[in-house]
């Protein structure tokens, strides 16, 4: 399944300072849908190159990280159990506090 992943608010530093990643992620088995849970596990093992604790806590994102699927907070679309569709755009953004 083709997805566009974007990292912002400093999370890009965890994946070699690349903000936008065009990726193909396969569901666990052919008939199953790809969920956010699967995608997070994939991102952690395939994209995050350092300090994984700055991205995840347990099996979900760490506090202070917003997940946006097609410009919408994932909490409005089922959160970690949300099923992804072909060509979805998933944004991971850490909140900023500076000024």
């Amino acid at each position, binding site marked *: 399944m083709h997805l566009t992943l974007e990292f*912002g*608010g*400093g999370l890009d530093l965890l994946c070699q300072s690349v*903000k936008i990643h065009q990726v193909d992620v396969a569901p666990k088995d052919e008939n199953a849908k790809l969920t956010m849970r699967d995608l997070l596990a994939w991102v952690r093992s395939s994209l995050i190159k*350092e300090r994984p*604790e*700055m991205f995840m806590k347990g099996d979900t994102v*760490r*506090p*202070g*990280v*917003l997940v*946006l699927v097609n*410009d*919408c*907070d994932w*909490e*409005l679309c089922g959160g970690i159990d949300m099923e992804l569709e072909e060509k979805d755009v998933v*944004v991971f*953004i*850490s*909140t*900023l*506090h*500076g*000024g």
Partner: protein
Amino acid sequence: MDNMDCGVDDIVREIEKLKLDKKEIENRIGQLEALLSKKDGDASQMEDNQTSSNFNSMVDGHNTFYNGLTPGMIYRYSRHLLLPDFGVEGQKNLSMSSILVVGAGGLGSPVVLYLASCGVGCLGIVDSDVVELNNLHRQIVHPEAYVGQAKVKSAAATCRAINSSINIVEHNEALQASNALDIINKYDVVVDATDNLPSRYMISDCCVLLDKPLISGAALGLEGQLTVYHHKGGPCYRCLFPIPPPAAACQRCSDSGVLGVVPGVIGCFQALEAIKIASCIGESLSGKLLILDALSSRVRIVKLRGRSLHCVSCGENATLSQQNFRTFDYEGFTQSPMSDKAPPKLSLISNSARISSREYKNLIDNHEPRMLLDVRPAHHFRITAIPEAINIPLSMLADEISLVKSCLKDAEKGSTKGASLYVVCRRGNDSQRAVEFLSKNGFSGAKDIIGGLESWAQDVDPTFPIY
């Protein structure tokens, strides 16, 4: 209040609050007296010369027309009044509103400039910092002449120079849980233009308790974020972030840098949201987040979750009260300080593995065989460095152990005794982490320079640039 139980702090706080109230009342009396004397002057002039008085009242700016605006306001804000969507109604609402801007820094600068020039009735500014030279590239409200003076004083002076007809209130103190309720209660709308995490939780909680809309902006590096909390049924800060992020995830402008115009853009958006809410026009960013990526000039607006029923601040069974707010430890809750200043000095390694910058200078003067390893990131090293230092960033140290070995060998050449390894960084924290790592990987004699380049500049070489 039972005076017998009052602590000294409470008494001091109440005195300060009363003084502030007194000042505001005096300001208002002054304004009204000025208005009265103008009106008296106009009245006597009208008797003298019936025909010219109409013109005089048009330019003196104080006689109020039937629409609630004075001729002076009509002229000054005419371009607002010409907007069908804003007009007389919008300007009147704006001139009757009071807005508090928390933080007179990179975000707050454009916010207070626009709010002053556009004619809000009362503009409050709260900050306890002083203006520093390295603020000026982004904190555009402060003139060079105010370096070393209170930011609030500087910002208020600039705003008064732009618009003398509005009421500007200076709160030259840090906004804290102990004084936030009293200060914020005086205003209709609050703008969070602070630079740290505990302040963001504290201001959001206070706005929920007092039922004030909150316009929250943030900027760092080349990115910015903006939303409106607790407005028209939308979420508060805690609805989105019930658990604070780990302290290590909280980057500071003083560590990570910030392109000056980025908080400027976000601050302008904050001013826009504040003006819309105060004048009751348009649709705010409540329930939406604006994300700015300056490098690609992209602005993305995303839909956020709604108000959480379980929110401890604004939910159905909220536990937050004015009583427990005043004593809540926001710095402890977030494990972060209420400022953008340098992180605390760590003490990771024993004193025997550390030397002062003066002691290191003695080693140089005595030509002791040595190697100086600078573990700052490469872009820091390019800003300034001690000439003999070799740069291997901390993050790459594990892969470059053999390089350290060969450099140390080179340093021993022409000497009868072995060379010693010294480690330096900006402030003396990363250098300890490096020594900790090196001592476990074959460099048991490695030592770090206490206080890093900051202490070098302070104690050894006053001409050494600090950043």
